[in-house]
């Protein structure tokens, strides 16, 4: 038998690199944060407000303390440091003091030696609530009494751009509503806090930003940040829901109080109350165009419901406002974006971050405009697309890449593989056997959208990385939170590419070993932490080659690192890298992106670093009588700068589209009088394999972005921005209905006035 094994080189940039955690996640051996264990650990639990709005008259913990096995029952008075925390505004109590502002707000925490003792203790805490009328209508927030000392207005942005007196020859107007979406990650909030002998605490936690958490936790504990050490535990998805603190401070309080390790895991229902959601939106738009189809002005009023606490609402409304009209050339705009406080569940970061809601609005408007002009909707878009050198509504000129026309054109022109359904299971209604082929109407539509990459509005954002090369093995240390986006493969690919090594070790992500990597959000980690790793590796390479050049009396410029060797291009010098790095070379860098500026009083300014564009085409089958939808096919093109890991890129595009399909046809946290009615995966539905069509990738448009490592743009958010708008538009095309509420519910179709 011949040995046909080929020595495989580990993947570099542009090559598919399988995830090290891929198979363990499939076979169940991956250690998630909920699997953490310590032999001496206690279990923690949280008592939550059953009311969306109430005053707390008193809390009696006595009966809970008396429960056998209970080690701690803590309330707001036990928080030694800052009583409040928050990502942008410090306005959310660690534990409620005198009032509760949303259903599920934490009121007390318990540690006990068994989960059942935790439950009994939580049941035994007596809270005397005086109910107050909840503020649940965001439209009434500004005119209502403040429900928080910081007031009910979280942020208002009035963007005014260009000539304000322009009126179009053709004007279309529309009002749209987007429901509250949940990130629906599979691994609920969980972590383990271990008290340390130095008076500090080690927290093992699934999160998106270790250092951001650390600083907030330390402030609430009233201890120095370096006494709070966070290490990333196995993350079961994030999508924005882990950008805010949840059980972090609670775990540390309990661990420091009991001097025992404490573990906490939220139930699914608790998770729905324990993290922020995508903001529900009410949007009014008026688009003006000339008869030739050129956009001349857009007006919009955007109202987002921030819920009880600010979270990242200020940044979400900025995105919604800046990208309100989509990736089109528009000389005049008047956009008001408002986000308010209510007694509804708090809202914050979720994949797409404000651009998802407005994409639903501006793309519905573009279709209306096409109808009013009697023109093809793709043609109308193509006629107005942004290009490099154009101005955004913020006045900012696009200096980077913007292959919008190519993204739109490749997607719209891609041949469809969709056939008429033959298997009854693939008809609307699926396994329910509701629908026969003659009940189906097919619709098709295209949506185009964009969003900023990285943090905006003058935030000095950076990531830190350490690269150490020793005995020919590179070790990379970075606190970037791997939440599924693929940094674990990328850090290795970048290191191999720069240093020409195969063996790359990625050290655990921790606040104890390296500076901040920033948040895993805003499509930023490939650029920021990838950039930091690249820069650290390049410094190591320079240092090493300079050293070797000096040792051998050659010019450093003629030396290269490749295939585990240092080689000279000029002479025959060749040294094994392991030998060359017996004495290690190490470098630590802080990588900053180009500075941005704040928005001025007219919403104008160079507030953003870079932009990414995407398009989706959806084909849907609709059962008009029952209002049931089957998404038959999704086709997409995306502006990616450069593909670094093709396998992972496909995964991001498919996963993001699945969340988009969910928002289009089923995903909505239903809130009635401030209470969530469907806090479970029985009733908060996400797409199954029978709901999610194949995703056809028409084009990954590769125009390298200046300033980005290897020219790569972040790709995580775009797929969820345009997919929803495309699916909803296709349902409109199939039904001839306006369908202004997203998700589109069966009743919206079946009981619509014809």
């Amino acid at each position, binding site marked *: 038998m011949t040995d046909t094994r080929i020595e495989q080189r580990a993947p570099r940039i542009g090559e598919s690199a399988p995830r090290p955690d891929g198979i363990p996640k499939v076979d169940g051996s991956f250690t998630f944060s909920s699997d953490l264990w310590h032999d001496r650990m206690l279990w923690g639990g949280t008592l939550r407000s059953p009311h969306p709005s109430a005053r707390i008259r008193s809390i009696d913990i006595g009966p809970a303390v008396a429960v056998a096995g209970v080690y701690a029952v803590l309330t707001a008075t036990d928080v030694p440091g800052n009583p409040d925390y928050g990502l942008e505004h410090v306005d959310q109590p660690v534990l409620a003091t005198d009032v509760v502002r949303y259903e599920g707000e934490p009121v007390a925490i318990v540690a006990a030696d068994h989960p059942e003792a935790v439950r009994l203790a939580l049941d035994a805490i007596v809270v005397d609530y005086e109910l107050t009328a909840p503020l649940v209508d965001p439209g009434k927030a500004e005119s209502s009494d403040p429900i928080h000392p910081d007031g009910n207005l979280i942020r208002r942005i009035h963007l005014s751009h260009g000539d304000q007196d322009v009126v179009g020859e053709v004007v279309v107007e529309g009002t749209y509503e987007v429901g509250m979406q949940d990130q629906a990650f599979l691994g609920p909030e969980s972590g383990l806090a271990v008290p340390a002998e130095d008076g500090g605490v080690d927290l093992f936690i699934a999160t998106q930003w270790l250092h951001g958490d650390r600083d907030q936790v330390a402030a609430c504990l009233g201890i120095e940040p370096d006494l709070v050490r966070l290490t990333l535990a196995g993350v079961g998805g994030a999508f924005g829901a882990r950008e805010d603190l949840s059980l972090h401070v609670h775990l540390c309080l309990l661990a420091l109080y009991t001097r025992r390790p404490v573990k906490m895991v939220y139930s699914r229902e608790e998770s729905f109350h324990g993290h922020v959601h995508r903001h529900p939106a009410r949007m009014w738009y008026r688009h003006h165009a000339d008869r030739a189809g050129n956009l001349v002005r857009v007006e919009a009023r955007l109202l987002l419901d921030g819920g009880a606490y600010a979270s990242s609402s200020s940044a979400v409304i900025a995105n919604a406002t800046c990208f309100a009209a989509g990736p089109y050339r528009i000389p005049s705009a008047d956009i008001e974006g408002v986000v308010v406080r209510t007694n509804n569940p708090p809202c914050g970061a979720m994949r797409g971050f404000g651009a998802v809601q407005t994409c639903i609005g501006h793309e519905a408007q573009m279709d209306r405009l096409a109808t009013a002009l009697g023109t093809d909707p793709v043609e109308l878009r193509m006629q107005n697309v942004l290009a490099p050198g154009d101005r955004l509504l913020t006045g900012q000129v696009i200096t980077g890449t913007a292959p919008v026309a190519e993204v739109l054109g490749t997607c719209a022109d891609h041949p469809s593989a969709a056939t008429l359904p033959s298997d009854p299971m693939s008809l609307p209604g699926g396994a329910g056997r509701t629908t026969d082929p003659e009940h189906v109407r097919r619709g098709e539509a295209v949506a185009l959208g964009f969003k900023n990459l990285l943090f905006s509005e003058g935030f000095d954002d950076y990531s830190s990385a350490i690269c150490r090369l020793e005995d020919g093995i590179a070790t990379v240390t970075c606190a970037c939170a791997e939440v599924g986006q693929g940094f674990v493969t990328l850090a290795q690919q970048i290191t191999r590419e720069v240093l020409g090594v195969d063996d790359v070790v990625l050290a655990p992500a921790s606040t104890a070993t390296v500076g901040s990597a920033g948040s895993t959000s805003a499509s930023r980690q490939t650029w920021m932490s990838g950039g930091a790793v690249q820069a650290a590796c390049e410094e190591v390479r320079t240092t090493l080659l300079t050293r070797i050049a000096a040792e051998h009396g050659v010019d450093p410029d003629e030396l290269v690192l490749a295939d585990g060797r240092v080689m000279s291009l000029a002479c025959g010098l060749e040294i094994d890298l392991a030998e060359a790095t017996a004495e290690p070379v190490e470098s630590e860098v802080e990588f900053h992106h180009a500075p941005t500026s704040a928005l001025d009083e007219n919403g104008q300014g160079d507030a953003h670093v870079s932009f990414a564009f995407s398009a989706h085409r959806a084909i849907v089958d609709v059962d008009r009588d*029952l209002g049931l939808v089957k998404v038959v096919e999704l086709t997409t093109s995306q502006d990616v700068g450069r593909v670094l890991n093709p396998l992972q890129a496909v995964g991001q595009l498919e996963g993001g589209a699945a969340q988009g399909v969910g928002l289009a046809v089923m995903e909505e946290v239903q809130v009635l009088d401030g209470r969530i009615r469907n806090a479970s995966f029985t009733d908060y539905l996400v797409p199954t394999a029978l709901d999610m069509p194949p995703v056809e990738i028409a084009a990954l448009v590769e125009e390298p972005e200046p300033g980005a490592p290897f020219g790569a743009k972040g790709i995580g958010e775009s797929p969820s921005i345009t997919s929803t708008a495309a699916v909803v538009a296709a349902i409109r095309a199939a039904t001839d209905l306006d369908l202004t509420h997203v998700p589109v519910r069966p009743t919206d179709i079946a009981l619509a006035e014809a």
Partner: protein
Amino acid sequence: MTIARTVDDACAALAERPDALLLAGGTDLMVGVNRGQVRFDDVVVLDRVDELRGWRREGDELVLGAGLTYAEMVRGEIPTLVPALAQAARTVGSPQIRNAGTLGGNVATSSPAGDTLPVLTALDATIDLRSSQDTRQLPISRFVTGVKQNALEPGELIEAVRVPVLDGPQEFLKVGTRNAMVISVVSLALVVDRSGRNVRVGLGTVSPVPLRAVEAEAHVGGCIDWDTGSVPDTADVDRFAALVAGAARPIDDHRGTAAYRSHAVGVLARRALLRAFPGSAP
């Protein structure tokens, strides 16, 4: 906890502790436990009781063991003998749930959204009940008494469900907001008995207990041309659908509105009838 091996074991354990919960597939019970809604001190485990498993034919009747799983209802001869039951079982949950969940459990949970209940209602199924003292039989219509309430007495368990083998087509249709793995928003079972020359319709999720659409049944029974297997007059199909919709007593909840449910059950009725009588005027 008692792990029963025979029905007698289980009944004896129940006689001793009448408040014990019965655990078969656990697909309802454990959801309640995990959500903190169900607590119990005693449980009698039924999934190793061979007598409760499987099914047998007795003349024109099938005796379906209470431990028959949804996966088993979809396999073998059941799809031919009681097609609507197999169709309903296929709509339940995921493959894992269908492997674990049982017919007896679905009946005992007595949820308005229980997927097999409209089928059993349309078939006039009989529930065989057993305790250490006694056996008795109740028609499904008297067994389910309210939302998640039934006539099961303390110390009693469901041994089997009896359904007739009918000569005629059967249809089960279920609306959910997702194409699989979804709780019913509204469902309908229609069974045809050619020899009895009648059509029976069971409705799910449109009232506290599963309903028979008796007026609609009576109406359509008189309009069918049994020789051609059709409903010749379109007006009769319309009337049938309207009567079914009118029989529904739905509520608004987070899964759907009453108005939508009434509308949808009428649509399902029309479609089921036209599938069962394909020669009909549409």
